[in-house]
């Protein structure tokens, strides 16, 4: 069929009109400088990005488990003492002097008498006693941090006495946030969110919570009544902004929307190409381990209960190569659950070496002969075929898994790789259905707290290897009651010795926590801060939030506000254009009607 005459519509006036309107609106929006939107545009604002599903659970210090929330809480409430940025010494904060006597099992703290809450109420011993007594409640998420405290009492308004049982008090319990008793006594402690919009937040740290938008952002402002001049921050506002994905977080960093962000290995080339940004690698605290299921009642391959099989599997892996390949060198080989930067990490243990010959020799020696299909079998005929399971978020390790499979192929072991979401994998592990799993634990920088994982009492929740050793359990109790750092170190070393040689885990590597920040805008950032979550993470990160300052001060005169006259002119121009077009359309329609 012949097509109809395509004379019309050559131009759709309405579409042009719409496009003009949209373009004008778009240009108007672009031209308006938002810095003028602020009531006080000379404010210095520092923005830290984060991404993922765990932004802020609660601002209730007794119940919070998320890293961002804990960092924010550390900034708005004071602690008794602070660790130095390198975590090697204690420095005064709320307590100006102290005496920790492990032989007498007492610790006495003298509080700063000028310290005040943001509402002007003095910070007293009552606040400290209330906070620590609450931390010691069974429902508190930080109870384990206070396990070395027997009691806490106020000797007077500004003196607090703790009865303690071990050195872990000094390392774990000393920097817990203190909350205002006069506020918190009136709330239900187990359900209180710690901040509610519309009410004035009362804190005692260098910052105060100003606003919170769930899953999006938390805005902190400088505490105008902060009582310690030596810890006064240089920025007026501190914003924690959350992103749905690391891709948009990186884009925001690169476009200058945010000032600092954690980045992944795959982001490195892009960040390195951006001259505005610098990358800082912090000593890794996440132990990426390979767990062998050796639980006697588990349903995994039983050959993994044989230490010789585990040894062969460990010798067959070239960890250094995996680090280079997957982590571009930004990871440190591990030896135990205690990260290599932690003073409690056993310095005498060395990463398992790569030695295929030895691996094959061990298997030959202990009767694991090759079957007809090229896979070894145990003396009772169980083939060395294992599952290797990984959580879906571990992208780099998932990419490395095929390489590991090839390493194990070289010793006659077949491994099938499968990826699960973390909840499913967790359920499978608790039921001991796995053979091998790669996962991680985050360890503390100054205390070997993660050694609890291999306790018999941690079966089944966290002890995914199913490792059980009475001596290890006894040593853990001794560790918690150690009366000196030296004694604690000796015990921790011995515990790591036991698990290292038993291959409860193969602690493969500790990837570095990579932080990228804008070096064109910001200075005075201490890149040697030791923290589990990078140089801006957790309590040690507070040092950087306090010291960071802009390279050039932003003054109101530098910003040219867009006058209402310009905005008005844009609107008038748009209206005139619309009127002219409408007139033309009207005239055109009139003439067409006339022709008909």
């Amino acid at each position, binding site marked *: 069929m012949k097509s109809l005459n395509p004379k019309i519509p050559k131009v759709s006036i309405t579409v042009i009109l719409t496009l003009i309107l949209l373009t004008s609106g778009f240009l108007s929006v672009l031209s308006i400088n938002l810095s003028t939107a602020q009531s006080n545009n000379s404010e210095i604002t520092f923005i830290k990005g984060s991404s993922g599903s765990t932004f802020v659970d609660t601002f209730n210090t007794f119940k919070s488990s998320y890293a961002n929330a804990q960092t924010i809480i550390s900034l708005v409430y004071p602690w008794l003492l602070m660790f130095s940025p390198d975590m090697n010494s204690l420095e005064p904060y709320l307590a100006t002097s102290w005496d920790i006597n492990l032989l007498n099992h007492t610790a006495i703290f003298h509080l700063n008498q000028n310290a005040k809450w943001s509402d002007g109420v003095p910070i007293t011993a009552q606040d400290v006693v209330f906070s620590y007594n609450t931390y010691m409640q069974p429902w508190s998420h930080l109870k384990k941090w206070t396990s070395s405290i027997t009691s806490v009492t106020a000797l007077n308004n500004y003196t607090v006495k703790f009865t303690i049982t071990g050195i872990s008090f000094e390392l774990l319990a000393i920097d817990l946030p203190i909350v205002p008793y006069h506020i918190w006594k009136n709330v239900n402690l187990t359900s209180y*969110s710690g901040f509610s919009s519309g009410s004035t937040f009362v804190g005692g740290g260098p910052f105060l919570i100003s606003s919170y938008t769930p899953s*999006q952002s938390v805005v902190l402002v400088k505490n105008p009544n902060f009582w310690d001049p030596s810890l006064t921050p240089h920025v007026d506002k501190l914003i924690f902004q959350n992103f749905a994905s690391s891709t948009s977080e990186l884009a*925001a960093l690169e476009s200058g*929307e945010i000032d600092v962000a954690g980045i992944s290995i795959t982001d490195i080339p892009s960040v390195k190409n951006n001259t505005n940004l610098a990358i800082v690698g912090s000593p890794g605290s996440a132990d990426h381990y390979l767990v062998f299921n050796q639980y006697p009642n588990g349903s995994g391959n039983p050959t993994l209960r044989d230490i010789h099989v585990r040894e062969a599997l460990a010798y067959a892996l070239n960890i250094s190569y995996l680090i280079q390949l997957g982590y571009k060198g930004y990871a440190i080989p591990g030896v135990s659950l205690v990260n290599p930067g932690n003073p409690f990490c056993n310095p005498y243990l060395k990463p398992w070496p790569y030695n295929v010959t030895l691996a094959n020799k061990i298997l030959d020696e202990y009767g694991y002969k090759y079957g007809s299909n090229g896979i070894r079998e145990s003396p009772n005929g169980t083939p060395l075929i294992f599952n290797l399971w990984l959580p879906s978020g571990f992208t780099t390790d998932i990419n490395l898994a095929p390489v590991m499979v090839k390493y194990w192929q070289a010793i006659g072991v077949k491994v099938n790789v499968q990826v699960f979401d*973390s909840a499913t994998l967790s359920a499978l592990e608790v039921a001991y259905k796995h053979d091998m799993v790669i996962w991680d634990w985050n360890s503390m920088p100054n205390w070997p707290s993660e050694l609890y994982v291999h306790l018999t009492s941690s079966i089944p929740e966290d002890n995914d290897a199913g490792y059980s050793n009475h001596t290890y359990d006894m040593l853990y109790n001794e560790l918690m009651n150690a009366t000196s750092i030296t004694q604690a170190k000796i015990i921790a070393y011995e515990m790591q010795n036991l698990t290292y040689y038993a291959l409860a885990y193969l602690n493969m590597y500790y990837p570095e926590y990579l932080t990228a920040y804008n070096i064109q805008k910001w200075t005075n950032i201490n890149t040697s801060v030791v923290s589990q979550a990078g140089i801006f993470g957790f309590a040690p990160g507070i040092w950087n939030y306090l010291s960071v300052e802009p390279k050039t001060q932003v003054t109101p005169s530098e910003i040219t506000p867009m006058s209402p006259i310009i905005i008005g002119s844009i609107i008038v121009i748009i209206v005139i254009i619309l009127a002219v077009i409408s007139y033309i359309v009207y005239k055109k329609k009139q003439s067409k009607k006339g022709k008909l």
Partner: protein
Amino acid sequence: MKPKEFHIYIYIGKKALYAIITVFAIISFNFLLFRILPGNPIEVLYRGAQLSPSAIDALYKQFGLNQPLWIQYFIYIKNTIIGNLGISYAYQLPVIDVLFPAIINSLILGIPATILGIYIGIWTGKIAGWKRNTMTDNLFTNISMILWAIPGYWLATLLILLIVLTGGVLPVSGMYTPGINYQSFFYRLIDLLKHLVLPLIVLTLLNYGQYTILMRNSLIDVTNEDYIISAKAKGVPDYLILNKHAMPNARLPIVSMIAINLGYLVGGLILTETVFSWPGVGWLIYSSILSRDYPVLQGAFLILAISIVISNFIADMIYLYLDPRIRYG
């Protein structure tokens, strides 16, 4: 009551009943779906937190997970009916407080994107259909096909990259600039519009293709009808044939597609919202899946399902109005 009216009421009643049954089935499925999966949210949220058994028990009680499944189900049904969607595991806030702002945010992005998509789609589809087998038709159809086929996250990422390379003329994420004390509502609106530009462009480009193709095909079908040839033979000008004779009939399939697509405005923008960190229902669903936040997921899926059921119901009603065959049985 006249037979015709009776027939209409029966039709409406049937459709309404189907919608109610569908919603109830969705509510039940919604509950079961998240619980038949292995693992539980407490394990995920607090892995490695070294909580004491008392603290873990308290969390199970707080979220009602200590009850048998069938009791959890009845509590869920009862609470859903009275509008209580539970407490979010991850945010520790009532689900409705988390969900409601997200719905509004999704609509702020979704409505203009849909309107623009429909508008551009109908316009390009109309031209392509009218000028079929010409260069214009090929151009519009191919562009629509390409944009319709492109993965949304790829287009979004490309756009973000472009913005970053051009010095960040527009914000690439979020809905507002955090921490700004707006002097007036005007500045707040401007900030919102700036953040809206990129996701709006992406969604519009992704959306309009389907309307173009449908409009084009529908128009081609209609222009083959005898009454169009008659109109042409009578000397009716082409623009009148197109706008007064062909378009009213060609629009019918578009109407039902619009009605169905409107249902996806709430919760159907997962990829775009995730890439641009737009705090809508899509992002909420994404993050809640990662954290196994059952109450939020249940709430979000419920809202999504209800909006789709309602959209379908509306589409049925529009057809009742537009199509006499349904009215007269």
